[in-house]
């Protein structure tokens, strides 16, 4: 659905995108992550045909973006980071205005899907941020596109609004749509994405499935709580263990990071049982994207 190769873009002297490569497959939810100013929105603007680039290739829905007569020819749905509407229009009027083939029944269905049926005839100027975001999703869907590009759809929303937007995105995937969305809220990415691409300083850092990303990059960490603090010799023994990468202590709790993902924790457990100090807890810390994001960002 999306094939981007060696994409380069400058804003004056500033090299915003430095040879980006990105691929999005059909019917997947692709999470595009990166710090503020990393180049996410610039890449998405190019994908939507709203921005130009100097070098590289960008194929969307089989069409070369550089050869487009107008952005609308891409037949995509696009939700910008700050969706702007005509505040003097009602939600229904706006959806009809953005429809290629205005159909009141279809507009009504999409408004219901977005949960805006009670506000359909209200002027958009009175909408909350969450309602605008849902209306933006409805607009992105109005022309029945196969590919939907969403720039920070859940940021600036309260937890309830975020959950609602994520639910709508999963709905869209179930309808057979392909979605690429950017966010810096990593828990959102973890919740719904099939694959993830990370950009930093205009360069693509990686592009992987969530599971392989965590497996390859985040080493397992065990939190072991003892009834009494360990003595120095016991800590040294742990530190010198062949399977252990790092040991940190805080009061009675020892944080142990293993060298590899597939190491059996049995060896570690046997070692700590040999200390003859009662163990209160032995937990594998859940790996998450947050730790990786901080690491790559650094």
């Amino acid at each position, binding site marked *: 659905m999306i094939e981007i190769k060696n994409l380069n873009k400058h804003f004056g002297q500033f090299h915003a995108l430095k040879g980006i490569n990105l691929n999005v497959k059909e019917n997947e939810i692709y999470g595009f992550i990166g710090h503020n100013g990393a180049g996410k*929105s610039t890449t998405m603007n190019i994908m939507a045909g709203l921005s130009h680039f100097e070098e590289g290739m960008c194929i969307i829905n089989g069409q070369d973006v550089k050869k487009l007569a107008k*952005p609308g020819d891409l037949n995509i749905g696009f939700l910008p980071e700050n969706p702007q509407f005509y505040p003097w229009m009602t939600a229904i009027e706006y959806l009809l205005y953005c429809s290629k083939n205005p159909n009141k029944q279809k507009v009504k269905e999409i408004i219901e899907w977005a949960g805006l049926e009670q506000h359909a005839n209200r002027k958009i100027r009175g909408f909350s941020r969450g309602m605008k975001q849902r209306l933006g999703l409805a607009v992105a869907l109005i022309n029945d596109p196969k590919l939907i590009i969403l720039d920070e759809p859940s940021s600036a929303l309260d937890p309830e609004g975020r959950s609602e937007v994520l639910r709508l995105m999963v709905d869209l995937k179930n309808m057979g749509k392909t979605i690429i969305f950017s966010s810096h809220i990593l828990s959102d990415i973890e919740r719904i994405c099939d694959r993830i691409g990370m950009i930093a300083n205009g360069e693509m850092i990686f592009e992987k499935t969530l599971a392989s990303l965590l497996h390859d990059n985040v080493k397992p960490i065990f939190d072991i709580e003892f009834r009494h603090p360990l003595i120095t010799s016991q800590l040294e023994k742990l530190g010198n263990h062949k399977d252990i990468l790092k040991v940190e202590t805080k009061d009675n709790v020892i944080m142990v990071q293993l060298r590899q993902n597939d190491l059996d924790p049995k060896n570690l457990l046997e070692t700590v049982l040999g200390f003859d100090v009662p163990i209160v807890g032995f937990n594998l810390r859940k790996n998450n994207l947050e730790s990786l994001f901080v690491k790559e960002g650094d």
Partner: protein
Amino acid sequence: MFKEFKKEWQFATRSGRLFILIMSFLFLALMTPIMLKVLIPEIFRMQFPNLSMEDIVLMVNASQLTAVQGFMSDLFELGMIIVVFTLCSIMAQEIRDNTLVFPIVSGNKFVNIIASKTVFFGLTVGLLVMGSIMICYAYSGILFEFEVPLQDVLYAGMLQGLYFIFIIANLIMWGALLKRTLPTGFITLVIAYLMQAVGGLFDIHAYLPSGLIDFSSKLQFQTQNIMTSTLVTVIFIMIMFVITHVSMKKMEFNIR
């Protein structure tokens, strides 16, 4: 294209811009004859108490002709400022506020967006100009006497209307180029007044859009000059349309 016109109509009515334009033109159309008939003679009478009413009437030279000519002069001076600052945002603000992002991605063509703005606001202002000139003509005819041929006034109204379409095309083009509302308004006003000054100074009104204003406000219609000026104005409007279209095709949207 129809939905674009509908959108511009909704914008003009719901933002209050159409109301502002109608009330302003109506006010100017009704005030000019009243000024000539009542206010100016009254001011003269208070300033020069020794003058008789007949002398004052001679000094003021109030008639339907002077009322209509005075109104057309007001249209160029005051009416233009009102139109320019009421409508300077029609393109610039859309680009600046990113309200064009959804319509463009949804498939709306640049040419339709520009054409709907030019035609809708051009026709609206053109009709308002013609209508207000007719109101001034009728009201001054009632206050004084009908001395100006109706067809001359209609003709003048059409020429002034065309000139205002040229002004709208300026607002759209400069809006697309500058992307800022007030500079768009100011540059349009500078162009209009500069053109009027240059046309008068070098006697080249016939080759400029300002000729439409000059010939119509004098109610003197030399076919050759008017044809030239009309043609030049239409060519200017077309050129500005093309420049706006090229500029929008090269434009980057949704930029922070």
